[in-house]
């Protein structure tokens, strides 16, 4: 089936099976490797992306439900304050969960406090197997604060 969406600011059109997940469409159809697939069950959050501003787990989200929508992957935020803060705080080790973490922080609404407790609760759907979370959470807090301060 022909699939189309605006992905990271670019109009993408490709052939995608009707029963594909969004992560499969983005990686296999749109060749966007900013979306990582780890658990494939909607648990780890590595495949997090935004569909019309709403965070979803791409591995369990139907590709065609996102047809024609604006989709943002970590590639949209690669040069942003959250990604920089994660690197500076030592929040990246193997890096596989990092794209999902960056997207997740960018998706947080203003009622999520930019504190350690707030971030730990809000990022419960994003798992990391390497860092032990200390640097990652510190980086996410700093990144969210910088994002809200309007840092480009």
């Amino acid at each position, binding site marked *: 089936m022909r699939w189309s969406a605006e992905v990271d600011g670019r109009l993408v059109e490709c052939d995608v099976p009707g029963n594909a997940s969004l992560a499969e469409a983005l990686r*296999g159809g749109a060749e966007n490797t900013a979306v990582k697939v780890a658990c494939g069950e909607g648990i780890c959050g590595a495949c997090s992306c935004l569909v019309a501003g709403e965070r979803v787990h791409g591995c369990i989200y139907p590709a065609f439900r996102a047809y024609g929508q604006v989709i943002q992957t970590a590639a949209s935020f690669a040069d942003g304050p959250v990604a920089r803060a994660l690197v500076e705080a030592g929040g990246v080790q193997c890096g596989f969960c990092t794209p999902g973490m960056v997207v997740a922080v960018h998706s947080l609404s203003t009622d999520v406090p930019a504190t350690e407790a707030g971030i730990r609760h809000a990022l419960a759907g994003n798992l990391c197997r390497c860092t032990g979370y200390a640097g990652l959470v510190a980086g996410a807090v700093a990144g969210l604060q910088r994002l809200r301060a309007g840092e480009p």
Partner: protein
Amino acid sequence: MPSQAANYYRPQTPEMAVELLANLQGAAVIGGATLALGKLGGGRPSHLIDLCDAGLDRIGWRGHHLSIGATTTMRDLRRHPELSAPGLAAIMAMAGHFEPLPVAAQATLGGNLCTGVGSLVAPLLLYEAHAVLLGPDGERHAPIAPLRLHPGEIILSVELEPGSPMARSGCQSLRRTPVGPALVTLAALVDGDQLRLAVSGIEAPARRLRDLEGRWDRRSVAQWAESIAHVVRPIDDARGSADYRRAMVGVLAERLLKELLPTELREVH
């Protein structure tokens, strides 16, 4: 990447969904799709019939029953004003479990029931809930535990009796992963000195513990928890042994009853 021959359909009405289901081999109906696309679903369906535009996401009254549409998401359940009464807190507690996770905006009530071990089943059983189904032979009502769909049927909604506005209810569950099936879910409702109890996950199918229900007697909370652990018939599977489940339902029962009981009853014991 799955087969290119697969198709995706988004019917605008439940009747159209039933017709598609009757005519497409290997098709599956999806509400949130969290199971159909994830590895937990056990195999990708050939075609997807997505109910997201079929108008099944409404919550409202149908006579004396509160009707909750099958594609109502956990997040919408959590936020709907009709479900904010203390007597319905058990449903809110389970829906709230998913709150910080993106899956909360995707996982649906219907999907939760279809898993057979859904954690919403126990709280819904407290309110005598039944499912409203639509199939080739029309609409029918069916129990939610066990929920047995005939070939070609879809879930339209779940209807329940909210009961007294003075009631208090709650729910506790234990699970291995944030979105995986619960090993044990225990729901309870206290209305005056009357008690209702239901379990899911620990038994197959989920059920009300009617033998224990009735008037709250002079037993202590710990004794009640022991009685609950005694009457359940735990299953034994890869997620947890029967002994572990039995022990855990006792722990959850004690926590839940302490939370729900009026102070004067709690202090007696």
